[in-house]
């Protein structure tokens, strides 16, 4: 169950080590991301590490970034908790000749070589559209969000609101925070259901939110009646979909994203990359519905 493809304290003298800096660790989304990285590393025969703070935390992530710079890795992929906070370290890494790419979330106005990932606003728009579709373009909807201050979640929220704005008969009646905790997400969803007996649908923005929403719908016996849309195809989301509690999942394909990102880093390290500075690789967002779930699961990994 170790993270790296290499034993813990191996000497990293000559062999290149690639480092991925996720926003956090304790979220199933990052499990898929890590597996993608590990599989690709095994394929390419390189060492790759997955190092992040326990929970989303910009300062802690920067501290890890700081420390990892000292080890002179062969390449870094960063999914920033806050883009502005990593500018300094990216500049230092670049100055030290370490290629850095942004992955999962962009770092505008920085020295990163480019970005691979999705557009969170676009993903939000897709989620909003999926919800609008499933509630029949009308009714009250509510949002549960992991954190009010996480940049990526706010971008998704922005997209969701953008999409919903196109549907005048849809009302956003509540936005509650879960603190990235399934328990709190479920509690908040349960309470929202109490306060809005005629709710038509939910969107869970963060990784822990949809599982909480699905649990709340199940315990209130409202699966199917109240629609639920969320991000990331995590096990509980799949389970919810199988139970009829979840109607759509927006996948950012974390597995493929990291695999591709590692390939890009290795190419940069070997100076064989054909990508230009400020490249953008959009890995795309997929809306998974109960009909397309089986197909998606076959192709995802």
């Amino acid at each position, binding site marked *: *169950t170790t*993270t790296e493809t290499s034993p813990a304290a191996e000497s990293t003298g000559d062999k290149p080590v690639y480092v991925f800096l996720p926003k956090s*660790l*304790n*979220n*199933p989304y*990052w*499990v898929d991301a*890590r597996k993608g990285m590990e599989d690709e590393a095994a394929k390419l025969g390189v060492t790759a590490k997955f190092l992040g703070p*326990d*929970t989303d935390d910009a300062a802690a992530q920067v501290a890890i970034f700081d420390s990892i710079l000292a080890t002179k890795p062969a390449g870094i992929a960063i999914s920033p908790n806050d883009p502005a906070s990593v500018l300094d370290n990216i500049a230092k890494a670049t100055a030290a000749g370490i290629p850095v790419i942004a992955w999962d979330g962009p770092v505008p106005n920085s020295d990163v070589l480019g970005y691979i990932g999705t557009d969170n606003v676009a993903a939000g728009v897709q989620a909003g559209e999926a919800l609008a579709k499933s509630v029949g373009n009308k009714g009250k909807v509510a949002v549960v*969000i992991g954190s*009010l201050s996480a940049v990526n979640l706010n971008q998704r929220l922005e997209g969701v609101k953008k999409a919903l704005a196109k549907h005048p008969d849809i009302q956003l009646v*509540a*936005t*509650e*925070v879960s*603190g*990235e*905790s*399934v*328990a709190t997400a*479920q*509690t*908040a969803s*349960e*309470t*929202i*259901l*109490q*306060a809005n*007996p005629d709710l038509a649908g939910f969107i869970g923005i963060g990784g*822990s939110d949809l*599982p*909480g929403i699905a*649990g709340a719908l*199940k*315990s*209130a016996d409202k699966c199917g009646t109240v629609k639920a849309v969320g991000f990331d195809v*995590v*096990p*509980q989301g799949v*389970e919810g979909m199988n139970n009829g509690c979840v109607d759509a999942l927006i996948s950012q394909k974390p597995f493929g994203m990291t695999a591709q990102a590692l390939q890009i880093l290795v190419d940069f390290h070997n100076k064989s990359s054909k990508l230009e500075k400020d490249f953008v690789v959009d890995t795309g967002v997929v809306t998974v519905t109960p009909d397309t779930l089986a197909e998606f699961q076959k192709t995802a990994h």
Partner: protein
Amino acid sequence: MTSNGEIVKQETHGASSTNQLAPAIARTTLGQKTRKTLRKIVTARESTLAAVVILLVVYLSWASPYFFTAGNLTVVGRQIGLALIISVGMTFVILIGGIDLSVGSVVAFVSVLTGVFIVNLGISPIVAVLLALVGGAVVGLVNGSINAFMGIPSFVVTLGMLAVARGLSLGITSGSTISGFPSEFLFIGQGAYLGIPIPVWVAAIVAIAAHLVLTRTTFGRHVYFVGSNEEAAKLSGIRVRRVKISVFVIASTLAAVSGILETARLSVGQPAAGNGYELLAIGAAVIGGASLFGGVGGILGTALGTSLLLLIQNALILLGISAYWQQVFSGVIIVGAVALNMWRKQRN
């Protein structure tokens, strides 16, 4: 849970500061007795806090048509229940003048253990639950033993355990969650008996038992004594170490109980569970009148503190307060409630 009067009456043994002493004369008529009981309730340490909680409930019933519905009460009840189980354990630790920062991590650890046992290893739920409880108890045993035998402050010991237990949960699962529990297991978190959610039953039983233990048994008295003056307790022949270790085992085991129920409620074993629960539990006990210096506090106060904290959360959502400002309200209400309680106490 139980009638208010009952608990208050017993509570005053604990460590109250009511100075209204009835004369030693034994000839009390029935009327006098009732009046005495009434006065005890009104002047009890927790009465103002109870009044605040009741007022909050009354206000919410008036302000939101959704508050006093069976559905919402079930929702709030379950939340209070899950939190109360942990807070009760924390109260024991606080009473001896200690602190247990590891309860939240124990919730995560037990959540993961339950998942591994039931889903990955296919052990029967009952056995798995028992094993997970043992896991929780062992954490407490380690906490308590290090604290009692090495004399390391409980804050440090349990801060270390906070990291260790969380790290184990992360390490065991590599960060992923475990789902796929059988429905008979999920029942203990999601089901109800006589219309009342199982976690509420469990919490009620735990709280009443803990209350009786603390007020009626020698062990309970010794907990207060150790917290009030450890040196004196030792000199009085109390086995202080044993009391300390027991108390940490109780706290961890109750955190484990809550962790198992929460796992069942959420249908998922997850290493991220229980984050920050320690602050909630300590807060509940302290708001309920427990002193972090030990020797003062009780289950009734803790129950009120827990209820207050979770009712506020429920209220802010029901009343549609913007999520961006909710914390400001909740902070002010908490301090306000305790200030009222203090002010009443000082005036007495």
